[in-house]
């Protein structure tokens, strides 16, 4: 009994659309015919987090300066259209909820959504800061201990902003951003509509990563201690959790596993120095990762040897966890990593540090990469971003 689906109530088409979990499937559904398109909203608001894209400099001419790599589409590079106003003189230092975090030279903070090409401004970091612009290329930083030191703009870009994470898309009313700045010692947040960033009184040093989960920000330091920050009220409330045993490694990342578990991912990097100049780095490559799960009752980080079907994405982005079975062409039990070195904008040789670490055998599969600073020192370094239509 053939059925005439053009006579379907709109609610039914909408119910089917609501069960679609992948954005590309949603777009293709809307492309079927007029009656589907008019029944199904332009912007889906129900999608779970999508598989991240890898934004890459192509090392080519200015017209195709930036591309993205979609793990599902036969691993092909796709050209990314970025308005000149955005790409010119901006420096990429993070991504969260599908928005890239860009610093201007002035310095302002611009958020750019590569999927929708929307942009959004956040208050500039200098508005509160202990960093004064001395001239176009240098900053004078007043450390809380009373010490003053200088940083070039490029050094600032590389190391001043360690991480920026959001509670949600900046378009939502409850938007809050948290930043780890001044290399890793200062936490600052701003809520939607704020004109300046608010500092969180320092309770932890060497903050390495932060995530947002269940209305709270979780921040980890290089030894694995966790600061739980509640910035929902008028003043921030911070509690520190010090798990037994200090962690080692070169970088720490916090990831929400997706199964309500807090994971710690430790990155170990092999660094090679120049024979002649011992301060010059000639190679910076990730060797391996270790993964731990928080046991809250002790508290303690417990090593886990397998992620099952999960894929974790770490780097300068706000960490993401996905299930490989939800997406074609993806491998579970892997950590997809992008460059997180402190000299993305300085002259260091070699390729960017990218790849796929497989927990099963500890091997690393390479992702397309290119030479650091190949074409232009303003090229955006590789970063993961989750395509987000909101």
């Amino acid at each position, binding site marked *: 009994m053939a059925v005439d689906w053009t006579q379907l109530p709109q609610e039914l088409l909408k*119910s089917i659309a609501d069960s679609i979990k992948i954005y590309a499937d949603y777009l293709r559904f809307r*492309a079927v015919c007029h009656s589907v398109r008019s029944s199904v909203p332009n912007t889906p608001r129900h999608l779970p987090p999508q598989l991240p894209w890898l934004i890459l400099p192509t090392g080519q001419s200015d017209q195709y300066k930036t591309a993205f790599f979609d793990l599902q589409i036969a691993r092909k590079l796709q050209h990314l259209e970025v308005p000149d106003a955005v790409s010119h003189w901006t420096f990429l230092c993070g991504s969260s909820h599908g928005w890239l975090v860009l610093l201007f030279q002035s310095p302002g903070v611009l958020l750019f959504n590569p999927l929708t090409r929307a942009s959004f401004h956040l208050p500039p970091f200098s508005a509160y800061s202990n960093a004064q612009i001395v001239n176009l290329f240098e900053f004078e930083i007043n450390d809380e201990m009373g010490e003053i030191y200088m940083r070039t703009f490029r050094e600032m870009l590389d190391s001043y902003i360690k991480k920026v994470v959001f509670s949600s898309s900046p378009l939502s009313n409850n938007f809050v951003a948290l930043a780890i700045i001044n290399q890793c010692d200062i936490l600052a947040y701003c809520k939607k509509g704020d004109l300046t960033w608010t500092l969180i009184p320092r309770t932890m040093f060497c903050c390495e990563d932060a995530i947002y989960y269940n209305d709270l920000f979780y921040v980890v330091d290089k030894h694995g201690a966790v600061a739980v920050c509640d910035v929902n009220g008028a003043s921030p409330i911070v509690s520190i959790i010090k798990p037994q045993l200090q962690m080692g490694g070169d970088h720490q990342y916090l990831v929400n596993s997706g199964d309500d578990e807090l994971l710690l991912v430790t990155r170990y990097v092999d660094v090679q120095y120049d024979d002649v100049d011992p301060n010059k780095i000639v190679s910076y490559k990730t060797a391996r990762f270790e993964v731990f799960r928080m046991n809250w009752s002790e508290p303690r980080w417990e090593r886990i040897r397998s992620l099952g079907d999960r894929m974790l994405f770490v780097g300068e982005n706000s960490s993401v966890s996905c299930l490989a079975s939800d997406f074609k062409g993806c491998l579970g039990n892997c950590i997809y990593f992008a460059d997180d070195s402190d000299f993305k904008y300085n002259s260091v040789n070699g390729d960017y540090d990218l790849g796929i670490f497989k927990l099963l055998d500890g091997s690393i599969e390479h992702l397309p990469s290119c030479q650091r600073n190949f074409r232009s020192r303003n090229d955006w370094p590789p970063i993961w971003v989750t395509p987000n239509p909101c």
Partner: protein
Amino acid sequence: MANNGENPSPDVGGKTVKLKADDGEIFEVEEAVAMELQTVKSFFDDDGVSYDTVVPLLNVSSTALAKVIQYCRRAVELRAKSGDDEGANEKAREEREGLEAELVREESDEGIKELILAANYLNIKDMLSFLCRAVGDRIKNKSVEYVRRFFVLENDFSPEEEERTRNEVAWAFEGVDAD
């Protein structure tokens, strides 16, 4: 009164309701099961409608109605099993998910579509929900043309409109499964 193998007689003594499919076949079901179909519930909520009245379901085939009744009967049983005990709840939930998966797995594309229309017409929220999810799974990573054929919908976009859509999000139209 038809009484085939798919419609075992309800217990003697329990209240029953008669439902008539589009081909005239009559199904006698326990009242609790019949009330899962919101359309049927509304039918009896009207004043003065006696429970002996046969409910005409003109838009539902007997095949679809038989499956709907079978699902609702199991759903009512499972709901009775769950209660305050978290363990029992969990088990009932798993059994229900197994039931849904089995129903969906056996159905052809035409069958699923027919069930969706039936569940929509009969207003059975839970059933409609998992059937829509099943359809979402069936069109996952499929081309636009495949989705059109699945729903038997004509492409009524102009060539210009279509080209514009494809250019705006070119990446979304690549990497689909071969039809």
